[in-house]
């Protein structure tokens, strides 16, 4: 009987073939996600408050009537919205005498003005108050154009065009008004 050697060889066991095929790479993933909420911020108004000083002429042809009041500018530095589609709404309240007494004919206890907020969109947000001589209906509001991109800017609020209703004589006393600037998403559309 002849001695018989029977060898079984697995092809994968051949040196040089087996290890070259060992490319069983494994990949795993960790998804990372987050959100950034829509945010608008207005810088601190500088200077504020605004004191326009004496508003009536104390001599001359227009004595007792409103004098020329130089425009005032207040800056809101570093104001921003981090999304597209924002707008400014400015609400102005006329300067009205803090004296609640009724005014006599020929007199006014209110001073109107124009508030303009610039440097946000293509145009300004502008409103002019239209208070009556007696101080009625002192508040007006307007919304400016839409800013189509995220933006950071120094907003300039300019107060100008100070007038008295019917150019009446101004009653004596302290007057106060208010300008509110609102920066946020447009009412419709906008991102």
């Amino acid at each position, binding site marked *: *009987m002849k*001695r*018989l*050697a*029977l*060898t*079984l*060889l*697995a092809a*994968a*066991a051949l*040196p*040089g073939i*087996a*290890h*070259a*095929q*060992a*490319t*069983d*790479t*494994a*990949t*795993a*993933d*960790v*998804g*990372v*996600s*987050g*959100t*950034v*909420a*829509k*945010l608008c*911020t207005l810088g601190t108004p500088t200077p504020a408050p605004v004191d326009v000083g004496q508003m009536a002429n104390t001599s001359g042809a227009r004595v007792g009537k409103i004098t020329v009041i130089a425009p005032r500018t207040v800056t809101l530095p*570093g104001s*921003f919205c*981090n*999304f*597209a589609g924002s707008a400014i709404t400015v609400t102005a309240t006329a300067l009205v005498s803090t004296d609640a007494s009724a005014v006599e004919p020929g007199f006014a206890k209110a001073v109107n003005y124009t508030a303009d907020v610039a440097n946000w969109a293509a145009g300004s947000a502008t409103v002019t108050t239209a208070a009556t001589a007696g101080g009625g209906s002192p508040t007006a509001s307007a919304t400016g154009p839409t800013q189509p*991109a*995220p*933006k*950071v800017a120094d907003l300039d609020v300019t107060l100008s065009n100070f007038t008295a209703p019917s150019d009446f004589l101004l009653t004596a006393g302290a007057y106060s008004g208010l300008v509110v600037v609102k920066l946020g998403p447009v009412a419709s559309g906008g*991102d």
Partner: protein
Amino acid sequence: MKTSILAVAAVIAATAAFPAAAQTTSATGTVTINGSVADRCQFTLPSDVINAGELSLQGSGATAGKLDSSKLDGQTRTLQGWCNGTAATMSVEAQRLVNTTFTTTPPAGFDRVVNYIATATANSANATDTSVTDGAGSSVPVGMFTGDVKVTLSGSSSPTSGLLVAGDYSGQVLVTLTPSVTPAP
């Protein structure tokens, strides 16, 4: 002559005895069995999610709207896997978080990308990569192991340290285990 006859007889006897001797000799057949185990790596827990939530700082201070790095830094997730060869390597690729809802170039002062560093740790080996540059970081030897592959985030930042554009941000960390080629025995 007598001697000669004996000699012949002895030869015959020897010849006659030969078949008996052949019956006691062993014969061996051999079957050799070979096999192999290829170098291999596998993840048994191949995915996880880090939801970092709001990424920007709140409030109204000077940093409001900018990246809150605490939301990403220190985040960890643990995957699980194994490699059966001593030459296995590991690499990690950090893919930056990108705003998926605002896809155009942001205006000056804003960022829509958040970068970070990802570190994968397995078998006491650390592989790292920063998302600032594309592609995976350098491979490190990880060897034969089975168990945790810990992924940690650190060093988050935005390109200009600017305000983050509002929206949803998404990125990912890819960890790759490569068996490599072991030397032939």
